[in-house]
């Protein structure tokens, strides 16, 4: 069963456009949603949740159409957009009492379990929480209303390495029983190298690639060669840079002839993102 099924989302702004955004996430897995700042990650997420109205396209969550079952589905979705910027002078306890009224399946026992597990003190004020604690509080809320799909926009940005590691550990324990699915956007690719099962890469409003992580990386090759060999592959490179040690470039694995005497390795997610960003520059 698909937790998320996004098909042909389009949204046009004066200076930016989402074009035919499609991707699927199977239930019980973690998907990392990557792309540079301004590539369309947040616009995609907001369109999925109907927080902004897409011009066209279809969103299905847990098999149901978002357009027809929005109220019902939102009971089953937990989403978090970075911090909490409201009720900041209230205690956690007070804010939770407001939020829980919106959820039919709210479970106080689950809530207190997660508060303990995340070491959150109910009597602390929102303003006193660190960035990591705010993310954890959001997660506690989502899980206490029985969310099966977590959609998180940059949950790890602004967290120190220890807090990020802690959070990734929590993500993995949440998908342990195969019931919860997680989509999270980030530009910190090292968060994904380990724990994400699938990667969806958005660049300039379009999905460049969406597949399982190993396969995603194996779609590309990072080439290292002598400048004199550059002409043999130049036309097919996604982008490249030249320095006194030769050239480095990114190519689709299918476009590369392994018989050529050029060193080819499988790139990291970060290298893929960087070379795609360079491609934009060459067009400008």
């Amino acid at each position, binding site marked *: 069963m698909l937790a998320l099924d996004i098909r042909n989302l389009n949204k046009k702004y004066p200076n930016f456009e989402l074009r035919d955004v499609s991707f699927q996430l199977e239930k019980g*897995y973690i998907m990392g949603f990557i792309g540079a700042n301004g590539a369309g990650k947040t616009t995609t997420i907001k369109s999925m949740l109907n927080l902004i109205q897409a011009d066209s396209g279809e969103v299905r969550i847990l098999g149901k159409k978002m357009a027809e079952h929005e109220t019902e589905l939102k009971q089953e979705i937990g989403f978090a957009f970075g911090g909490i910027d409201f009720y900041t002078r209230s205690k956690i306890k007070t804010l939770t009492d407001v939020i829980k009224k919106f959820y039919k399946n709210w479970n106080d026992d689950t809530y207190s379990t997660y508060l303990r597990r995340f070491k959150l003190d109910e009597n602390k004020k929102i303003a006193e929480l660190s960035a990591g604690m705010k993310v954890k509080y959001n997660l506690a809320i989502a899980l206490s209303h029985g969310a099966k799909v977590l959609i998180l926009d940059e949950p790890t940005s602004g967290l120190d390495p220890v807090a990020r590691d802690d959070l990734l*550990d929590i993500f*993995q324990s949440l*998908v342990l*029983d*195969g019931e919860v699915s997680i989509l999270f956007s980030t530009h910190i690719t090292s968060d994904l190298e380990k*724990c*994400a099962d699938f990667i969806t890469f958005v660049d300039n409003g379009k999905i460049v690639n969406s597949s399982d*992580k*190993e396969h995603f990386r194996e779609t590309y090759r990072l080439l290292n060669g002598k400048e004199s060999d550059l002409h043999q592959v130049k036309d097919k490179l996604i982008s490249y840079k030249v320095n006194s040690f030769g050239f480095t470039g990114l190519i689709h694995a299918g476009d590369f002839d392994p018989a050529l005497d050029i060193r080819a390795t499988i790139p990291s997610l970060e290298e893929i993102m960087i070379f795609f960003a360079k491609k934009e520059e060459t067009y400008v």
Partner: protein
Amino acid sequence: MNVAISNTSEKPIYQQLFDQISAQILTGELPGGYPLPPIRQAAQELRISVITIKKAWEELERSGLITTTTGKGCFVADFSSEEMLRMRNDMIMKQMAGDTDYYKSFGLSLEEAIELLKKVY
């Protein structure tokens, strides 16, 4: 079962898993019938993705090193000692074939290679 994953290695993670676990099976360290940890639990404990573990387990199954029983999980397969020896040698020879290409790229003869190997072994 002992597994140490390196994130900085050039070797894909599922390959690292496969190499380490198959060595433990083929040396008899993991006996026939030994249960492998469930995929999702292993993923969380090793902090790698579920898909990566799946791939490693599938690879082990394809090589005949483990068997999968639906609903019960994966277990180390039973081998005779001859089978074990044959599979071990196959695996080592595969690795050697790759190394040999490297030696050949320096123009080493078999005798020279053996001499050097003796020195480092």
